[in-house]
């Protein structure tokens, strides 16, 4: 019995009832996120909710540990934050934040 999840917009069939980490790894997805400091890819590590390496965004909610979540039909999963093609940092999450750096310019004294 399969369900379908959407990984970064792509529809992926996965076995019902398995963990999201298993679903992603089983379908060949190993980069779950990019590190906030270096932007290097990170995948699941401890498998028991301790290391927080497998955090990703599920149905719009960030910070979901894939090793603790189960797949659900129609689940939408975002692995790396969307990368601006013009962004030389290659998807550094700090550079991709909405509202960043919008308020201090021109505040005179």
């Amino acid at each position, binding site marked *: 019995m399969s369900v379908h999840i959407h990984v970064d917009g792509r529809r992926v069939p996965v076995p019902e009832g398995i963990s999201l980490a298993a679903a992603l790894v089983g379908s060949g997805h190993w980069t779950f996120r990019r590190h*906030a400091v270096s932007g290097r890819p990170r995948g699941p590590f401890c498998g028991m909710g301790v290391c927080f390496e497998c955090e990703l965004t599920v149905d719009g909610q960030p910070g979901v540990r894939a090793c603790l979540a189960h797949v659900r039909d129609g689940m939408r999963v975002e692995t790396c*934050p969307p990368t601006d093609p013009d962004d030389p940092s290659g998807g550094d999450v*700090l550079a991709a*934040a909405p*509202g*960043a750096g*919008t*308020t*201090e310019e021109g505040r005179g*004294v």
Partner: protein
Amino acid sequence: MSRHTADVVVIGAGILGAAAAHYLSRAGQRVVVFDRGAPNREGSGTTAGNLHIQAIHPSRPGQEVPADNGRFLPLQVAVSDMWESVELELEASVELRRHGGFMIAETPHEYAELRAKQAMEAAAGLPTELLDGDAARAALPLLSRTVVGATWCALDGYANPLKITPAYLASARRHGAQIHGYTPVTGIAATRSGWRVTAGGDTYDAPAVINVAGPWIAQVARLAGIRLRMTPVAIQMHVTPRMPETMRHLVQHIGEGMSVKQVTAGNVLIGGGWPALRLDLDGRSVASVRSAGGNLALAARVLPFLSGVRLLRVWAGPLAATPDELPVIGEVPGAPGFFVAGGTYAFTLAPLWGETLCRLVAGESPRVQVSDLGPDRLLIDTQSDELDLVANQERALEGAVRDSVQQGSTRRKEQA
């Protein structure tokens, strides 16, 4: 036991001791610094790292005597420029950020306070701007509808408390200062030409001693037979995990204890001087869950995005407060060569206090007038009843000093 000489003995390797050691050693003085533990592990390393340039919020939650924030202003104005050059001077990054800060009001009464504060700042030559609620939100859309006004100061900022003290110490070391961690001072005696400090089983003769021991100031002074009235407290900080850059400013509250900022690494630090559960001068102070809830709820009321974040860590640290909530800096009357510095906002004022101590030791006048901030006002009259009032507190603290001495001697034995 061996005997050493120095020009200045600094007791306490927090930010004040480190800054003083930097200025003194750069001026050619032979400096020896002692700390009962690792450098920068107490108040200086557990503080929020705010650079408060606009006038301070006069009361922490639970603070009995409000601070005279007007007295701080000339100090803040003077130190602002010093922070600007600190990274160049120390040849190190301390994650200095001068992105400005808001102090917000949520009630008409608080807004009136902001107006008065802004007038006071203008008179002191500190440029700040008074904004109504909509203007404040236009400048910082993260602010909630509860905000009715704010003062803006472009000079407010942040420096990483975990970097600035080590950077000062590294500079002092480059200029020849000796830094001794885990070496509590066990004796201070007046000599004909100055002071003899006993630490780590050795003695150090020096014409000048600087007591910047933070919450242990009174205990260290007592080793020299000086009775000082200090009122150390423990306050706590709260931090979120790293987040994408969301906020570049320091946000404070004029009426309640709140400071919020996002640091270079991306974590949001939420503080405001809320009291910890327990001041523990022997171990680590214990954070209060009630304070955490109060501080976080207030921060989330002013900055609603904070109601959706996670709390990563809470920690508590000591604050070397004085009974009148003003800084203390200067030579102890009747004890020539024995200097004390401490009090609240020591982090912001550290560059100024380091330089001031250096000048006072050399007999020069500091860049700002501090004669009214001397330790004379904190001296305990040994003839009065006041001694009894502080006796309990001191007994508890003596235990802490004794234990640290024992720990120190055990460690020395292990090293030997």
